[in-house]
């Protein structure tokens, strides 16, 4: 029904709708589109890096531009591609899985998206305005303090704005899961993806503030002449590394835990079996999150923290392999004895297990502080983290997109094209990154612009570049799949014979999600009703008017205010007139905050009659 209404609207009404929406499903579309755009951008940057390294002493790009490429590839992929796509998936699916009509703070949800979008835009505009950040994605204070131009300033302002949005998302999702679960949806009946969303949000909440502070300190030092990292005035640059990794290590679990949730859903659905070891999976997720906060200094083994600190962090790091191993075995045992269907979503999940396990094992190798002196800052590290981030997060994103595409967009992705996406990408990943381990062991340092001929690095780099292009081919086929599928047949409500609540509503879900809140009778509620009931989820309340939040343009405008003040911060060191932008932008955003605060917003009600009509339409 909603789609026929959409077809009649003009283009501008469509745009206005998305600019003002507070609906979690539409915000998910925005996140996926925004994250997808930055994913392509980051992918192009990766290809440029690999072209530069295709042969010894190549001069495809200059050394300075190469530094900008590696910095922006890392920053873009982590903050602007992987995280937004993950947040988009959570937005689309988590409220449906717990039987809620929206998230706890729909307005904040929209604000989170727009802050991410304008933060990412600001960061990438640096390419056009005199040079991008060039001190690596970590932007260590030693390098970033001395980087000329405004590149690093863009890094600071862009990430600060986008990071604020992410923090709000974390708070929003935790509150949603705590207060808005449907009747009967106890914590230990929540699907694994919802659990992963919950734990990931806790990680975001506690991991992002140190990054915020770190960016502030760097900003004060670079733009306002303070002395946090200025050794001449007693500053200490190791503080930057600590704060960065206290954020940075949980960040990698923010990237991977949601994907563990995704794979748990997919393995259970396509094995037609309950997830093996549900309780162990939940506690393993929590344990990984907890340990994830305890191991940051393994990124700093060579700083010189001393053997005791290094040993403690090494043991902690290796301990993470235990809960992760529990997960791997539980997935394998979920498939054991199940009726396994292998389709595109399942292929990504199956490809994930060996790929991620290899990444995990090199992780344990790196976790040994003694051996790490050899691996540190070499291509071995690059190979390791791409095995876990591409093999885990990117495979997970592709799996989730194939699995939930019908629920998010109302169309099933083409199976043949789906498999054609997987194989080049899967082979490409292993070609690109496996040889990087060997290159690292042979002494190739990371972040180097060129390498010399005949140092046994030539062949490995060539293979790596070929692999990168294969991944590009896979990604292009996926884009073709999206376009082809848009004209394909409409998806049924439950195309995969699903187990969880999101498959109990139409595809895509109506804007109010559930006309009546569902009553949950156990883990995998839809499956229970299919086996023991009539296949329909019982209602927990009589049909009545449904309360909905009002849309608003304020989140969009507020983010523009911060965007403008970001430019003010960056350029006020050149010219005092930029203070106008700095204070003007901030004042604009604060004024909008006050407007939001003093203007009553009670939301509106969908009358019962409209819901009745919709339900009748569904029954037909």
């Amino acid at each position, binding site marked *: 029904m909603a789609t026929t209404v959409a077809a009649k609207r003009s283009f501008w009404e469509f745009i206005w709708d998305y600019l003002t929406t507070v609906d979690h499903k539409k915000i998910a579309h925005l996140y996926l589109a925004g994250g997808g755009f930055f994913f392509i951008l980051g992918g192009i940057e990766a290809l440029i890096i690999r072209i530069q390294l295709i042969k010894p002493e190549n001069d495809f790009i200059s050394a300075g531009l190469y530094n900008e490429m590696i910095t922006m590839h890392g920053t873009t992929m982590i903050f602007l591609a992987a995280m937004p796509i993950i947040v988009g998936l959570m937005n689309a699916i988590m409220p449906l899985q717990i039987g809620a009509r929206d998230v*706890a703070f729909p307005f904040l949800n929209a604000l989170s998206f727009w802050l991410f979008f304008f933060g990412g835009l600001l960061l990438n505009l640096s390419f056009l305005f005199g040079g991008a950040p060039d001190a690596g994605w970590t932007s260590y204070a030693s390098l970033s303090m001395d980087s000329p131009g405004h590149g690093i300033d863009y890094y600071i302002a862009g990430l600060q704005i986008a990071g604020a949005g992410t923090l709000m998302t974390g708070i929003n999702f935790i509150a949603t899961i705590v*207060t808005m679960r449907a009747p009967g949806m106890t914590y230990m009946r929540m699907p694994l993806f919802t659990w992963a969303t919950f734990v990931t949000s806790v990680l975001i909440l506690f991991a992002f503030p140190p990054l*915020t502070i770190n960016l502030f300190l760097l900003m004060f030092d670079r733009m306002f002449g303070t002395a946090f990292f200025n050794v001449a005035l007693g500053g200490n640059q190791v503080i930057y590394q600590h704060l960065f990794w206290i954020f940075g290590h949980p960040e990698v679990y923010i990237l991977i835990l949601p994907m563990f949730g995704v794979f748990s859903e997919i393995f259970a659905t396509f094995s037609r079996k309950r997830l093996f070891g549900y309780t162990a999976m939940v506690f393993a997720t929590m344990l990984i999150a907890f340990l994830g906060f305890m191991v940051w200094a393994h990124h700093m083994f060579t700083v010189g923290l001393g053997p005791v600190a290094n040993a403690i962090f090494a043991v902690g790091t290796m301990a993470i392999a235990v809960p992760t191993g529990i997960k791997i075995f539980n997935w394998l045992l979920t498939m054991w004895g199940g009726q396994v269907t292998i389709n595109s979503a399942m292929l990504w999940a199956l490809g994930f297990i060996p790929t991620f396990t290899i990444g995990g094992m090199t992780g344990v190798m790196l976790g040994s502080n003694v051996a790490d002196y050899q691996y540190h800052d070499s291509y071995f590290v690059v190979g390791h983290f791409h095995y876990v981030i591409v093999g885990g997060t990117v495979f997970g994103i592709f799996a989730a997109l194939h699995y939930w595409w019908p629920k998010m967009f109302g169309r099933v992705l083409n199976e043949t094209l789906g498999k054609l996406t997987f194989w080049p990408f899967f082979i490409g990943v292993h070609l690109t990154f496996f040889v990087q381990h060997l290159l690292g062991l042979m002494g190739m340092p990371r972040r180097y612009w060129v390498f010399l001929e005949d140092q046994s690095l030539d062949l490995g780099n060539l293979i790596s570049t070929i692999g990168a292009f294969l991944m590009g081919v896979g990604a292009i086929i996926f884009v073709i799949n999206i376009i082809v599928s848009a004209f394909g047949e409409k998806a049924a409500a439950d195309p995969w014979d699903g187990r969880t609540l999101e498959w109990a509503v139409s595809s895509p879900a109506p804007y109010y999600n559930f006309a009546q809140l569902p009553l949950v009778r156990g883990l995998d509620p839809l499956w229970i009703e299919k086996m023991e009931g009539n296949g329909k989820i019982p209602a927990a309340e009589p049909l009545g008017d449904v309360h909905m939040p009002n849309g608003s343009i304020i989140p969009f405008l507020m983010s523009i205010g911060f965007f403008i003040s970001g430019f003010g911060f960056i350029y006020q060191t050149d010219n005092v007139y930029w203070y106008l932008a700095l204070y003007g932008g901030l004042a604009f955003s604060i004024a909008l905050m006050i407007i939001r605060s003093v203007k009553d917003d009670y939301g509106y009600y969908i*009358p019962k009659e409209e819901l009745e009509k919709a339900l009748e339409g569904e029954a037909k």
Partner: protein
Amino acid sequence: MAQAHDHSELFPEVMPPEPEKATLEGKNKFFGIWFFLGGETVLFASLFGVYLALKNSTAGGPSSQELFGLGLVFIMTMLLLTSSLTSVYAMYHMRNNDFKKMYLWLGITGLLGIGFLACEIYEFAHYITDYGFTFRSSAFGSAFYALVGFHGGHVLFGICWLTTLLIRNAKRGLNLYNAPKFNTFSIYWHFIDVVWVFIFSVVYLMGKVG
């Protein structure tokens, strides 16, 4: 149909015992502010860490022993602790649906906050003009002003928040729409107070004695 929902459920004749948590929005705000403060805790913890690492890096400038005077800090502590207590009174009266008394105590809370902020501004001005101790003079200075200033910024934000709330709702009494807003502010204000207790101990006491 339309008249069925004029949002009258937000304006009941008899207020429930906990008006701040009577609606789903209220409950969400209650949990939301607690989680937000969880993040804020890490934010301040990071700044405390930075301060502890840099507090002896005076670069030849004045040290904490020479700078700090416990008299002023004692007054500031009393002002802020009392303001936390008065905001408890305000919430007590909110739950008794006594709008006027709630306003009175919230007003006092705000005034005490302004008093605290005035002392802090005086303190900073004193350090800058009499000792030449600034945000830029040493790593100790940077860390001190970042931590204490960040807390001061939070107090300022709280006062602006409270003022907006008080002006907006002055003429309409208590209802289930604005009760969660007052409560959210009160929880935030307690947090600011708790952070100050740590600043008082770690920065001033340890700076003077330790």
